[in-house]
């Protein structure tokens, strides 16, 4: 079986994969990074979003071999070394932006990519950017609020308008 090597959350990672092995399976099964979730088989749900070379990517849409040499960042690499939540994670907790938690890793990774591109997104820009991430629990209200808050905006005031 072919070998693949990449950098995951800043550390070298390698493994044997089949040609058909998806990046999401490689992360979960080979590396044991089970924070990347798989919620569908048609690349619709976004539970699997990771960053590949700084861009948000659905890890189920990419073969592991395609990530050869890439810098991959997953939810497991987001908190500080001491376990402290990053700004986005903290905002999700503060605003109750998660319930069952299954969509959450993808939501956090997607939100991080959005805020990198658009540091102060509007409500509409947030909703638009989340098009590819399905949450069945929260009705999105508190996810949108959390992302507004993470960008330093007054989420409460905007949501109440």
């Amino acid at each position, binding site marked *: 079986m072919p070998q693949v090597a990449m950098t995951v959350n800043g550390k070298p990672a390698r493994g044997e994969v*089949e040609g*058909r092995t998806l990046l999401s399976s490689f992360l*979960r*099964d080979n590396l044991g*990074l*089970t*924070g*990347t*979730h*798989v*919620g*569908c*088989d*048609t690349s*619709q*749900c976004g*539970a699997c979003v990771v960053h590949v070379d700084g861009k948000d990517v659905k890890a189920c849409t990419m073969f592991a071999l395609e990530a050869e040499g890439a810098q991959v960042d*997953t*939810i*497991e690499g*987001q*908190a500080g070394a001491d*376990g402290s*939540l990053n700004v986005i*994670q903290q905002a*999700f*907790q*503060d605003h*109750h932006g*998660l*319930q*069952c*938690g*299954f*969509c*959450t*890793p993808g939501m*956090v990774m997607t939100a991080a990519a959005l805020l990198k591109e658009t540091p102060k997104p509007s*409500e*509409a820009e*947030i*909703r*638009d950017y*989340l*098009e590819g*991430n*399905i*949450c*069945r*629990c*929260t*009705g*999105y*209200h*508190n*996810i*949108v609020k959390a992302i507004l808050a993470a960008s330093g905006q007054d989420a409460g005031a905007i*949501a*109440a*308008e």
Partner: protein
Amino acid sequence: MPKDSGIGASPKRREDVRFLTGTGNYTDDINLRGQAYVHFLRSDVAHGRINGVNTDAAEGMPGVVRIFTGADFEGVGGLPCGWQVTDRHGEVMQEPAHPVLAQGKVRHVGDPIAAVVAETYEQARDAAEAIEVDIEDLPAVIDMKAALKDGAPKVHDDLTSNLCYDWGFVEENREAVDEAIRNAAHVTTLELVNQRLVANPMEPRVAVGDYSRANDESTLYTTSQNPHVIRLLMGAFVLGIPEHKLRVVAPDVGGGFGSKIFHYAEEAFCTFAARQLNRPVKWTSSRSEAFLSDAQGRDHVTKIELALDGDNNFVALRTDTHANMGAYLSTFSTSVPTWLHGVLMAGNYKTPLIYVNVKAVFTNTVPVDAYRGAGRPEATFQLERVIDKAARELGVDPIALRRQNFITEFPYATPVAVEYDTGDYVATMDKLEEIADLSGFAARRAESEKRGKLRGLGVNCYIEACGIAPSALVGQLGARAGLYDAATVRVNATGSISVMVGAHSHGQGHETAFPQVVAEMLGIDESMVDIVHGDSSRIPFGMGTYGSRSLAVCGSAMVRATEKIINKSKKIAAHLMEASEADIELKDGQFTVAGTDKSVAWGDVTLAAYVPHNYPLEEIEPGLEETAFYDPANFTYPAGAYACEVEVDPETGKVTIERFAAADDFGNVVNPMIVDGQVHGGLAQGIGQALLEGCVYDADGQLLSASYMDYAMPRADDLPFYSVDHSCQTPCTHNPLGVKGCGEAGAIGSPPSVVNAVVDALQSGGHKVDHVDMPLTPSRVWAAMQG
């Protein structure tokens, strides 16, 4: 000043940290040493006779461990139905067998025919493709009314027809209702479809079976809302494993919404195969498989008639519903259109005469069972739609018509067998008018019209029966289980506490909310209390989480167990302080003797319980651990009023939700932040039903909406910020917390207000439209506008 801890406070959820850092432990994250993987070969036809399954070629494929077919399950039990409905003639329902793997016939697309166990998933899948199945196609029945016609193909050859039951409720009222309708000043009639939905928790189902031959012990890790229910059903009815040899673990579960209540074939298979093969066997559903194998929801076709007198008082209500069961009876399927639907038909109104007829029908489709709200959304939708239609026909304000007919005195015995303990429908409607700013609607409509859009306002009320359920009552009604719950409060020597609960949290935040209650009762810090759930070997026999029951039923058990702890710890404190037990008070984690300055701390008492050197051993046992089982005296009845404002694009029929407001009465609220979140999520599912979602089969029984490309899940840009309020609180009168449950309200209460709003918008544009069936897709709305 909002509290910062205890009942009524909103501490941040402690479970969030693991979910936000990717360190949750969902079932698919569990991998056992030596595990094999199973792939199910599923029927691709809706109805067929299995003439043969040839596995010879597949057996020789790389990595194949063993292939199972229906023949391997002869002599093994089938999947049981938990509720036996008695029909209007006093006959019990028709109840077909439901084998783990199909035997003789396949009855829906997705029915499992064979199971390939292999060393890897890929090998299992590859080998499944080499299985030769000889299936003779049979004509499928998909439409319920066609399924009931004489000579229709039968889903189950050994039943007399495709009718599961013909239920009448309350049968004795039938003639009086008919008569009242015949003589009424006005009768409004509405025919509607409450379309089939798919629950779609974002985590697909997973099962891992494990077996220890040395101890003859089986363990099933599964995505379940109720591990003890699965242990009971699978152990006693399917596999014949006694409870002490069977452990069921439901770890972190990624949403359920009802679809993870039921006992599924894949769970029984993995447990069975692990025993046969003496190694762990794992199954992970793909989303495509989930569409074909998770029990689906709703699917009612209804005719409802509301009779009013000359003063617009409701005088009688009659409904005629066909409810789709699908091909087999899923665990609680039969109770949904009956006891969770018929008994709610009074809604918030004092209609004196009600008769509900439900025909449950077998079809060649995926089984249907409870989905968020389960029966109550169907009841609410038809009732609130017909009231709206009546108001329009009579030219009266829909809110005024509702207010005029509200139940205002409690307790209130409905003509459909239940007694509402408490409520205040006027208060929630007043609150709704305020938070939805209904007085500003006319100006907003004018503004929309300026932009060429039609704007509509829809309002409705809802009531639901939660806190499921009083065991003796549901036993009379056909339930084959008790519906109490249980909690064990284990106080450790240093005063920290583990509470083992029968409820299961799969998004509801029990790990945060339940400690708020215990900590407040004891006056200690919440961080000293942890909740243990989801593992039958660690928790007492409780019935799990569904029907908005966790806090009302399991929370009540937890309160009772904590009261026992308080009683015992007061005895210990009395001994330590050489005082009379009657004089001991517990406040802020300190025991004091009334009228003195004597005190001992919580931790001193708990330590004395476990190091009983100075202890009343002749009177009480050492240790501090108590269990309580709680069986509710009644259902709880959350209720509320919802308002939706939509804009309709007259060019395209596209509907957008502009505003949505929900005023709920959940009784007392333990954690307002979590309650808001539950309502938000329910609203999204209800709005999803109203505008987007629908499960579609073609005439041959092929599921056309079998992926997220075809089944329209609500996305962030389909939904607005919601305005929710639960400050109207009439506490439940019969449980110790005064709570009613909030998990399903949003999904129950929102679909009618969306449809009412769209009808209002279309009528404001001069279109003679009085109903559009959900989902209100642009094409349906546009077609309705064309007449």
